């Protein structure tokens, strides 16, 4: 069974790259370019995992996390952001994210190994 991942990222090149590396690992990628799209697609597509940027147009990542909590959606969320402040990390963890990755501190081919463990086992 193919796992699906929703990637919310406003930078088109980064979104394309993340999608590409995850597709190479046979994941079905659902792309969202802002937080609003992300919430809508999470509700309709029920992905197995969400990869969420924090600073995005319209609705930011924190609000997506909050909304998911209000909707009682039990989907693991991994933050993938260039904001690395302890306060932001703590805030996201309190809002229920399972992991926090800093984009510029990692290579694109490290994303899949990092999120693999949160995918439901087949």
């Amino acid at each position, binding site marked *: 069974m193919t796992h699906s991942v929703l990637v919310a990222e406003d930078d088109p090149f980064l979104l394309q790259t993340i999608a590409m590396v995850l597709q190479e690992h046979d994941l079905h990628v659902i792309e969202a370019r802002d937080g609003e799209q992300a919430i809508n697609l999470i509700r309709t597509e029920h992905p197995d995992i969400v990869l969420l940027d924090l600073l995005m147009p319209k609705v930011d990542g924190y609000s997506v996390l909050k909304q998911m909590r209000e909707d009682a959606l039990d989907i693991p969320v991994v933050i993938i952001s260039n904001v690395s402040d302890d306060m932001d990390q703590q805030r996201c963890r309190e809002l229920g994210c399972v992991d926090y990755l800093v984009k510029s*501190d990692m290579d694109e081919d490290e994303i899949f190994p990092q999120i693999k463990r949160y995918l439901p086992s087949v």
Partner: protein
Amino acid sequence: MQTEIKTGERGRDLPLFKKAVDHAADAIVMTDTNAIIIYANAAWAQLTGYTAEEAIGKKPSILRSQKTPPSLYEEMWHCLLNRKTFRTDRLINQRKDGSEFQAEITIYPLCAEDGTTYFVGVQHDITERASAEQLRTDFITLISHQLRTPLTAIRWATNRIRRSKSALTPEERNLSEMSYAASVTMANTLHAMLLVSRIETGKKHANFSQVDLYRLLERIRYIIEPNVAAKSIALYTDFASDVCVQSDVDILQEIILILLSNALKYTQKGSITVRAVTNDTQVDISVSDTGVGIPQEEQHLIYQKFFRASNARFVSPDGSGLGLYLAESLARIIDAHLTFDSVENSGTTFTLRIPLHHTAL
């Protein structure tokens, strides 16, 4: 904590003490048990716009603004009713004319000889400092997003080129390796700068938890191994599988990675050894190399921000001089101690000493 007002023998000093309080540069206010103001000094009057006469008989809540979270007042009363000193720098107060200021305030209960409790509040205006800190924080946020996003694009794109299966000419390969390495260096420098800023603004705190040192050191070995393989030096490890410490796993990893990347950078031949030695009270994690060493006469300077040893500049001209400054600052945050032993042209050993029975506050 209570402070007792002493009278009697020293009672004759009281007018002098009162004068000292009247003329203090910090705003001082005193209330009775019911929080009714019974005294305010000149600095308080100047800060708030109320004269002492206007204030006496009223409550300090005349300064309340809507901007202070109610939970802060709850926290304050909880503290004071338990006879403890309350401190905060998050209070937003309002002057008589309606203008607001951010106050750093200390309030403490004072017990007179007859058992009556009074409260003393000492505050000063930190609006300017707070707004400067806010500016600095905003600037850092701007840097992290505005610089890191394009940098991520460069890093990921060049990594895809250098790892692509299509044949690259030797020159193309060389160029892609160079741009990738430069982007990683830049990302690491930005990471270090942001960390320095968090430490210096007091925003970096330790999250203590039980850390399995064996797992941590194995993970670090996994991270660093590709960089070791790229050079012709050996990496030895010597640590037992059953050591746990109360510490902050991310900070520990950060420190050990700084020490290891330094060892790698300044060792041309020979080996690097990571060791963990435990006794009843502490664990010593050491990183030893057979590298260039630190010149004796420069050893006292190596934890200074931006300092780079003369031979380090020679080996690697583009270092930031932030690594050891960070390692030492981070060690202090987790109550660990970083020491070193180095002989020029022979090698260096850095040792991080972590107390074993640390009780997190």
